[in-house]
């Protein structure tokens, strides 16, 4: 690196960029699945969702702001009848698209179309390396659906699509198997952190990794380096020692944000709550004004104090962890992450009164189809104890 800059790059990111690096856009709250840990409590379409014309106007704006690509999700984004139209529109306007899907609409035909386009990336969600573990969280048949989608993509010659796994207590013992599945289909493995957001709050106590498992994830990620993506979501584990590949910083409102199906802009995809709502793309000035001028984002870009964590030797490494994880477990934002590897949150968590943690702002769960109820697998371990795309390279 050129030695001409005295301020570390991460400090520039902390102060915010002219446009997000990593923008998540959830196109719809409609979903054919009802995953137990869904971050956005998806299920039913919201009648106020952006129209095709409004969505295209957002894409025009992203092009003007030079947002390189968007992470499209949901809900299940491919359920929108204009999904393929919007995908083409984004690509034609130089906005790359990576979309997350459960695979149900990835047929041999769509896989062939996707494989031929450099500006489109696909991310298949799978939360168990076996049908037993996956379907317990994502619903009956969802493992087979995801595997079939990966077969179609591999057969079509789509190299390097993503296999995305939310790490839970039930699947952390399967990390090597996930890697094997990704390798089998020529995919890249992406591991992300379970968050107590959306319906994730309901299953957090049962599914979040144990302290022993947190160390297991850390060691596994250190051993696999940049070959495994994390969306920078495990930076709280940097307190174990060496930093993981990536920015190791909470990017909320600084380098990342979320546009939800109705156009609301939140600081982060895992923070859907009024507390983290910065504005709406339908307002005068659109997304750009929200990103550059919203009061919330301005605040998030100010230097953070560290609060109760400031005196901890690991603070420079973990920076207090994930804002949303603290918020939805009822912890103060300037204190430790609920999964603080030093155990500094344990006492605080014990003092959070039952039911006092904030609830997500919107629930789009389908009343008819109750979210997947967790079925305990035949017990493997009983170690109970509390404990995030990009390929980054600095030049």
């Amino acid at each position, binding site marked *: 690196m050129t030695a001409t800059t005295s301020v570390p*790059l991460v400090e520039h990111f902390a102060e915010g960029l002219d446009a997000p690096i990593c923008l998540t856009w959830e196109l719809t709250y409609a979903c054919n699945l009802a995953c137990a840990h869904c971050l956005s409590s998806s299920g039913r379409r919201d009648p106020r969702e952006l129209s095709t014309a409004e969505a295209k106007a957002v894409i025009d704006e992203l092009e003007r702001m030079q947002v390189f690509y968007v992470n499209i999700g949901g809900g299940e984004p491919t359920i929108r009848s204009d999904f393929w139209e919007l995908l083409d529109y984004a690509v034609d306007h130089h906005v790359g698209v990576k979309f997350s899907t459960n695979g149900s609409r990835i047929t041999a035909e769509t896989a062939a179309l996707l494989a031929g386009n450099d500006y489109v990336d696909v991310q298949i969600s799978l939360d168990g390396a076996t049908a037993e573990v996956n379907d317990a969280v994502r619903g009956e048949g969802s493992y087979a659906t995801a595997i079939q989608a990966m077969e179609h993509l591999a057969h079509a010659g789509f190299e390097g699509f993503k296999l995305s796994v939310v790490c839970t207590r039930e699947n952390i013992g399967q990390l090597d198997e996930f890697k094997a599945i990704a390798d089998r289909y020529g995919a890249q493995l992406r591991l992300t952190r379970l968050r107590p957001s959306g319906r994730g709050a309901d299953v957090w106590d049962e599914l979040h990794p144990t302290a022993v498992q947190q160390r297991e994830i850390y060691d596994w990620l250190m051993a696999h380096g940049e070959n495994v993506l994390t969306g920078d979501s495990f930076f709280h584990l940097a307190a174990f020692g060496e930093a993981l590949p990536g920015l190791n910083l909470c990017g909320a409102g600084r380098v990342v944000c979320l546009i939800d199906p109705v156009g609301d802009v939140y600081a982060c995809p895992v923070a859907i709550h009024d507390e983290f709502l910065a504005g709406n793309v339908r307002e005068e000035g659109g997304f750009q004004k929200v990103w550059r001028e919203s009061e919330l984002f301005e605040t998030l870009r100010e230097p953070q104090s560290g609060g109760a964590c400031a005196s901890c030797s690991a603070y420079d490494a973990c920076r207090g962890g994930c804002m949303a994880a603290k918020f939805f477990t009822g912890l103060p934002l300037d204190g430790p992450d609920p999964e603080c590897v030093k155990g500094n949150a344990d006492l605080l968590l014990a003092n959070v009164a039952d039911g006092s943690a904030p609830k997500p702002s919107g629930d789009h769960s389908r009343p008819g189809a109750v979210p997947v109820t967790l079925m305990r697998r035949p017990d493997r371990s009983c170690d109970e104890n509390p404990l995030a795309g990009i390929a980054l390279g600095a030049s």
Partner: protein
Amino acid sequence: MTVALAVLDRAWALSPQVSVRPERFGALLYHFGTRRLSFLKDPLLLTVVQSLSDAPSARVACERAGVAETALPAYEKALARLADTDMLQERTS
């Protein structure tokens, strides 16, 4: 060392699959083929990178941008890294 030196004496251009977004600290580069993001931590490096395609060599691009002689090794290293990650492509003409 010979390999690294050669970087400055060859002609380069940004890969057509790379998008550049200037930022206060320098620039962000994104490669749509490798889906890799890189940072230019210095506005002067951005000037060099943007003028590569009009210069007969990277050394000339550096001179035109006003890179000091003593700073050349650092720029050489940064350009080599960009070439390694396919952000830059060698030009034959």
